[in-house]
C-alpha cells in the first residue's frame, strides 16, 4: 500500500504530469501560451511513429508469445462492448440526449494513445515489461466503438450519416495508419532497424511527450474554461466513474488472455481511456447533432487527467494485487 502511494506521488511529480498541469494552469489563467497547430500535429506524428515502431521491434525481438491474435480479438470486443455499458450509464445518470450519450459512449469505447504512452513510460520506469504488440491492440481498439455508437443511434431511430466513405475514413484514419504502419516497419526491420533510428525515436521521446502533454494541458484547459457550464453533476461523475469500469473490463480480458502484468495494465489503460482525436472527427461526420464540446471536455478535461494522475498507478496497484507482481 505504501509502495502504491509512493508510486502515485512519484508519478504526480514526474515532468510529464507537471507539464500537463502547467498547460492546464496556463490555459485556466488565460495566458496566451499556445502551440501552433502544425507543431502539435508534428509532435503527435512523432509519438505515433515512435511508439508503433518500438512495439513492432519488441515483437520482432521477443516473438509473439502466441497471444497477439487473442489480444487483438479481445481488444476489438472491449472496444465494441464498452460503448453499450457507457451508454446505459449515461442514460441512467445524466440527462444527455440519445445522440449525445451515444457520441460520448463512442469516445469511451475507443482509446487515448497518449494515455497508453504515458502508462508505458511508467511501466518502463518501474522496470515492468509488457507485450510489444499491445500497440497493435491499441490500434485495433480505435474504431469498433464507433460502429457500436452508430448502431445504438440507429436502433433508437436516430439518423446517421452513413456517407459513402465514412468507413474508409475511420479505418484509414491517419493515426491508425501511422501506428500500424510504424508497427509493421518495426517488426520487419527489427532491432537492426531500431539501432539505425534509435537516437531519434527513443532518446528524445520522453521530452517530446512532455511538450506534447503541455499542449494537451493547454487544449484541455481552454476546453474546460469554455464548457464550464455543460459538464457537471452526473456528466462529470461519469468522467471519473467510467474509466474505473473500463479498467475492470480490461483487467478481466487481460486475465482471460493471460497477459503479463505490464500487458494487463496497458489493457486496463486502453479500456479506461477515451479517444479525443479519431472519434471526435468521426462523430462530427456521422452524428453532427451531437454536441462535440461535451465529449471532448469529458475525454480530455476529466478522464484524461484522471487516468494520468490517479488511474495509471491505481491500475498498476490493482493488477499487481490480483495478477501478482
Amino acid at each position, binding site marked *: 500500500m505504501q509502495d502504491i502511494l509512493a508510486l502515485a506521488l512519484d508519478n504526480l511529480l514526474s515532468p510529464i504530469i507537471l507539464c500537463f498541469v502547467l498547460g492546464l494552469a496556463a490555459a485556466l489563467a488565460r495566458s496566451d501560451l*499556445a*502551440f*501552433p*497547430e502544425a507543431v*502539435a*500535429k508534428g509532435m*503527435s506524428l512523432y509519438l505515433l511513429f515512435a511508439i508503433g515502431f518500438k512495439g513492432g521491434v519488441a515483437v520482432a525481438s521477443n516473438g509473439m508469445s502466441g497471444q497477439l491474435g487473442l489480444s487483438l480479438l479481445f481488444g476489438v470486443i472491449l472496444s465494441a462492448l464498452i460503448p453499450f455499458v457507457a451508454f446505459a450509464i449515461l442514460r441512467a445518470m445524466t440527462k444527455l440526449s440519445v445522440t449525445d450519450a451515444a457520441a460520448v459512449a463512442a469516445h469511451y469505447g475507443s482509446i487515448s494513445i497518449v494515455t497508453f504512452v504515458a502508462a508505458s513510460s511508467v511501466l518502463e520506469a518501474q522496470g515492468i515489461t509488457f507485450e510489444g504488440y499491445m500497440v497493435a491492440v491499441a490500434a485495433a481498439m480505435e474504431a469498433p466503438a464507433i460502429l457500436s455508437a452508430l448502431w445504438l443511434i440507429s436502433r433508437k431511430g436516430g439518423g446517421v*450519416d452513413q*456517407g459513402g*466513405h465514412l468507413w474508409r475514413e475511420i479505418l484509414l484514419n491517419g493515426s491508425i495508419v501511422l501506428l500500424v504502419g510504424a508497427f509493421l516497419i518495426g517488426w520487419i526491420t527489427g532491432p537492426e532497424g531500431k539501432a539505425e533510428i534509435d537516437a531519434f525515436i527513443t532518446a528524445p521521446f520522453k521530452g517530446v511527450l512532455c511538450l506534447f502533454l503541455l*499542449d494537451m494541458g*493547454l*487544449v484541455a484547459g*481552454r476546453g474546460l474554461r*469554455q*464548457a464550464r457550464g455543460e459538464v457537471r453533476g452526473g456528466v462529470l461523475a461519469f468522467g471519473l466513474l467510467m474509466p474505473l469500469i473500463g479498467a475492470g473490463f480490461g483487467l478481466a480480458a487481460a486475465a482471460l488472455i493471460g497477459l503479463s502484468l505490464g500487458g494487463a495494465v496497458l489493457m486496463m489503460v486502453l479500456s479506461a481511456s477515451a479517444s*479525443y*482525436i*479519431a472519434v*471526435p*472527427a468521426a462523430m*462530427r*461526420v456521422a452524428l*453532427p*447533432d451531437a*454536441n*462535440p*464540446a461535451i465529449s471532448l471536455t469529458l475525454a480530455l478535461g476529466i478522464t484524461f487527467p484522471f487516468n494520468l494522475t490517479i488511474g495509471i498507478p491505481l491500475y498498476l496497484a490493482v493488477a499487481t494485487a490480483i495478477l501478482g507482481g
Partner: protein
Amino acid sequence: MEMHAAKRVEIIIEAVMETRLTEALRGAGVSGYTVLPVMGGAGRSGEWSREGQIGRSGMVAVVCLIRPERLDGLLKAAFGVVERHIGVVSISDTQVVRAERF
C-alpha cells in the same frame, strides 16, 4: 477590361466535411474552388481556436466563383452537405474577367 457578372460563394464548414463538400461541388459541375484555412471563430456552438489542436478539428473556408446561372445547383449541392452541420454560407455578387473559366 471587360468584366462579367459572377457569384462568390463562401462556405465556412467543419474541416472533416471538406472532402464531402468538394465532392458534392464537383457532382454539381462546379470544378473550381479555393480552400482557405480558418484559425478560429465563434457561433451558436461557441468559440473555438485551432491552436494546439491535433485532429482534423476546426473549420475551413471554401470559396467558389461561379456564373450566376450555376448558383442554384451549387447551393443545392452545398446544402446537401452543410445542412445538419456547423457552418455558414454566404453569396455575394462579384465580377470576373476571364469568364470562360467559370
